[in-house]
């Protein structure tokens, strides 16, 4: 990792070199994106080694599907989507399915003010404490910015289910503020 890599003047040139199977370019792209992408994957998969395996599979897919990137949107966004899909596949593989109903009795319309004051580690801790299914839907909707229709397609559930799961996830997050004593 400490080996000095050639610098590429632009992202377009870096992508072109990666497409030509230039290993140094691929390593440069990995070094540039891996940290951020591991953070993305870890929000879905709390187990560290599983998250790292998923990241690795994600990058193999990035390099093999690079020809499909048309350059229309952000390249980082394209890689992020691959990582999210890979994480969802990993969750499905491990049969960590969607949550059962949990009784919540919080005012969902008015979140606790404390939630606004949380630091990044506390936010991650809160999200990681959610059951896998709630966590997935909360991450997809609130952090990645997917719509309920897109989530329904991705997870093969109805839009209504996506909405109700999001509400429950939000309620749980408030609940955990007390449980985790943040």
């Amino acid at each position, binding site marked *: 990792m400490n080996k000095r890599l050639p610098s590429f003047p632009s992202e377009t040139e870096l992508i072109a070199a990666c497409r030509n199977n230039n290993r140094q370019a691929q*390593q440069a792209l990995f070094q540039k994106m891996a940290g951020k992408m*591991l*953070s993305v994957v870890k929000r879905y998969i709390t187990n560290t080694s599983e998250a790292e395996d998923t990241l*690795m599979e994600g*990058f193999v897919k990035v*390099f093999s599907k690079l020809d499909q990137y048309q350059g229309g949107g952000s390249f980082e966004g394209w890689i992020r989507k691959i990582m999210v899909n890979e994480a969802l596949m990993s969750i499905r593989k491990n049969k960590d399915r969607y949550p059962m109903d949990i009784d919540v009795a919080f005012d*969902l319309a*008015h979140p606790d003010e404390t939630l606004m004051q949380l630091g990044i580690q506390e936010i*991650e801790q809160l999200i990681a404490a959610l059951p896998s299914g709630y966590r997935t839907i909360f991450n997809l909707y609130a952090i990645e910015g997917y719509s309920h229709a897109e989530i329904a397609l991705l997870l093969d559930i109805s839009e209504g289910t996506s909405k109700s799961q999001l509400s429950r996830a*939000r309620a749980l997050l408030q609940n955990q503020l007390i449980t985790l004593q943040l």
Partner: protein
Amino acid sequence: MKNWNSVEEKWREQLLNKSEDIPEGMWSRIEERLEEKPTRRFPIYWAAAAMLLLALGLSWNWNATPEETTQVAKTEKMVAPLEKVETTDSKPLNVLNKATFQKASLQPTLDVATPVASVIEEAPKEETIASVPVIEKQEESQEILTVRLDINPVVEEEIKPAFTQQKRRKSLFGKIVGEIRQALDGEPVNWQKLKEGNAAFENSIHTVANTYVKTEENVKRTLQIQ
């Protein structure tokens, strides 16, 4: 009072730029995966079989082409006697007008000795099948002529063998394919049976064998001289 959207927006800003430390050796693992050769879609012997089939198909087409040209030549031979009938007749066949344009019938007979027969004058009212053009003139004569030609249908008989030969070629090709499949499955192939009834295939085998023997003899002679 804040709502959830503003909370989530703030969280998103913080989380999207977060980066984790990458464990050492991860790139090497990815590199290993990238170095892996993709698994073959189909085994090598399938590729070999495909090449062989292609070669056989091409050679089959190549052989079929001269046959078609000879067939055309034979067809031309068939036409020749008809023209001869018209030209050898000293009297041209006269017809008054288009309404009385006469039809000629080609009645093939089995008489091999007379491949082209004579012109017979008759006056049938309703004869069918037009195939011989009749020269039209301005001369005003109500004479109605019918041309009857007796032609030995030699050509039809000649075409038939060509067709069956072609058909046989196709079936031979199918047989060869079948035998190749057998060979690929590890079963013995009876080439002798395959070449039976197919002179071209047999000749090719002999040509190859003779060339091999001659070459071997030449090599031996050369070595003896040296």
